[in-house]
């Protein structure tokens, strides 16, 4: 599919709060615990299965950090670890984070361009819960959240896009300004501040009040598709006008990823970006799911759980080489 050449993943997140508790329960352990058990019980009573309850306090820290690296829980949840928990459905990549900034953050992640599927999974969980519990809701302001920037639908729809050529054309600043005009925001998926390591960007809605969930999903999808078309055009142009240089870059990056015996994370991202570009343009024979899974596999905590005995840089080189040798 054309979309997969650019779109790495889609995610939906719904913020919900219980009517009868203050938003911040990080210093109220009894209410926080009630929040966890109420949610878990509501899910069970509704007959929803496949969710595992994980408490962050006293949990295996490396395993939890690996969940953050996979995008299944947020880094913020680790910050309220004493009272936080997550109900996780690994098979569908659905998680219900409990006691983060809001009481509940229902999140679903899918690969490629698939916001609707992710949304349907979140809504199914929400429907099941709302049969047993009451969420804070106001006819004018919608679902009430700890921070008014999320009130209304409480929904964040985001796409992760791989845009190496738009980045090189120095167009991402302008793209961000244009996106802001329709209530969207563009940020680097990895890295601090203006950095976008691996040329990966997160496109998501900033505005949550006054638009329906469908409008939000359509806007994010439409802008995502436009960025995709721009990037694909730049790729075609590069193939036509500058093929030798493009191939040189891609094959060199492949050589480094396959030959290196030690690799820092900072070195990995740009090489990964070039090789993914090569795979997406059919210059290299790697599957895109393989390339995308490398992103979380090459993260520090993930590496540690698979290569416990090796130092990080060595483990990363091993992991990347093994994956690329397996091909698909």
């Amino acid at each position: 599919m054309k979309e997969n050449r650019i779109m790495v993943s889609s995610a939906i997140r719904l913020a919900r709060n219980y009517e009868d508790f203050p938003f911040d329960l990080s210093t109220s352990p009894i209410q926080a615990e009630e929040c966890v058990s109420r949610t878990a019980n509501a899910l069970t009573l509704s007959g929803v299965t496949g969710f595992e309850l994980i408490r962050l306090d006293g949990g295996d820290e490396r395993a939890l950090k690996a969940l953050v690296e996979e995008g299944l829980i947020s880094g913020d949840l680790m910050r309220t670890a004493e009272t936080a928990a997550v109900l996780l459905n690994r098979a569908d990549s659905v998680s219900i984070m409990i006691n983060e900034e809001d009481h509940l953050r229902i999140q679903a992640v899918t690969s490629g361009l698939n916001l609707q599927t992710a949304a349907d999974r979140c809504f199914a969980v929400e429907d099941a819960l709302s049969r047993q519990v009451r969420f804070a809701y106001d006819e004018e302001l919608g679902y009430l959240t700890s921070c008014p920037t999320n009130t209304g639908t409480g929904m964040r729809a985001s796409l992760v896009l791989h845009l190496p050529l738009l980045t090189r054309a120095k167009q991402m600043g302008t793209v961000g300004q244009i996106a802001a005009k329709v209530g969207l925001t563009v940020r680097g998926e990895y890295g601090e501040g203006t950095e976008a390591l691996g040329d990966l960007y997160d496109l998501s809605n900033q505005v949550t009040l006054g638009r329906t969930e469908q409008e939000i999903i359509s806007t994010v999808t439409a802008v995502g598709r436009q960025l995709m078309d721009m990037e694909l055009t730049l790729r075609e142009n590069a193939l036509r006008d500058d093929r030798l240089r493009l191939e040189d870059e891609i094959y060199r990056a492949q050589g480094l990823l396959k030959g290196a015996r030690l690799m820092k994370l900072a070195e990995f991202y740009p090489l990964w970006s070039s090789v993914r570009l090569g795979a997406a343009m059919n210059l290299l024979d790697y599957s895109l799911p393989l390339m995308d899974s490398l992103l979380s596999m090459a993260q520090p905590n993930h590496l540690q759980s698979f290569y416990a005995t090796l130092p990080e840089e060595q483990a990363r080189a091993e992991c990347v080489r093994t994956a690329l040798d397996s091909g698909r």
Partner: protein
Amino acid sequence: MLCDECNLNEASYTVSLMMEGQITTRHLCPECMARVNTHMNAQTVKTLLSSIMAAITGERVASAQEEEEEDDLNSPACPRCGMKFSQYKRSGKLGCPACYEAFREQLRPMLLKIHGRVQHAGRRPLCTEAAQRSRTRQEELSREMALAVSLEDFETAARLRDQIRALAREEKEAQP
């Protein structure tokens, strides 16, 4: 990424600024960053100078903390959790769901600025039992539909799909 301020140079700094009680992140180029710094210095100098004047004239200059306390004193509070509106302006976070009711008038212009609209559109809780029953039935039917599709019984699947659509339509019409 280009500088948010001049839109000309590549941004190399990320700064968080307090603007109208909200923290905003801006990406700036070295030139604009320097300007922000001098602006801040000018502000600091002004504060320092006014404290000298106060010492000379014997006038009291309120410290930032005193101003906050003063602010809190006159600010409306949430009857449920006790949070003051001035506290919200500093932290950006509300205390409890009842805060929205308590500060509705003050929040409206802020929400308008953030979202451009203040009337919610979209999903709402299933408030009536009839609606909940209908939703449960829709879910049962869609599971049956998925089963029918997997068995390649498309006739049954199409019939189930129509039933689901009809229920969804009823549900929508029943809403106020």
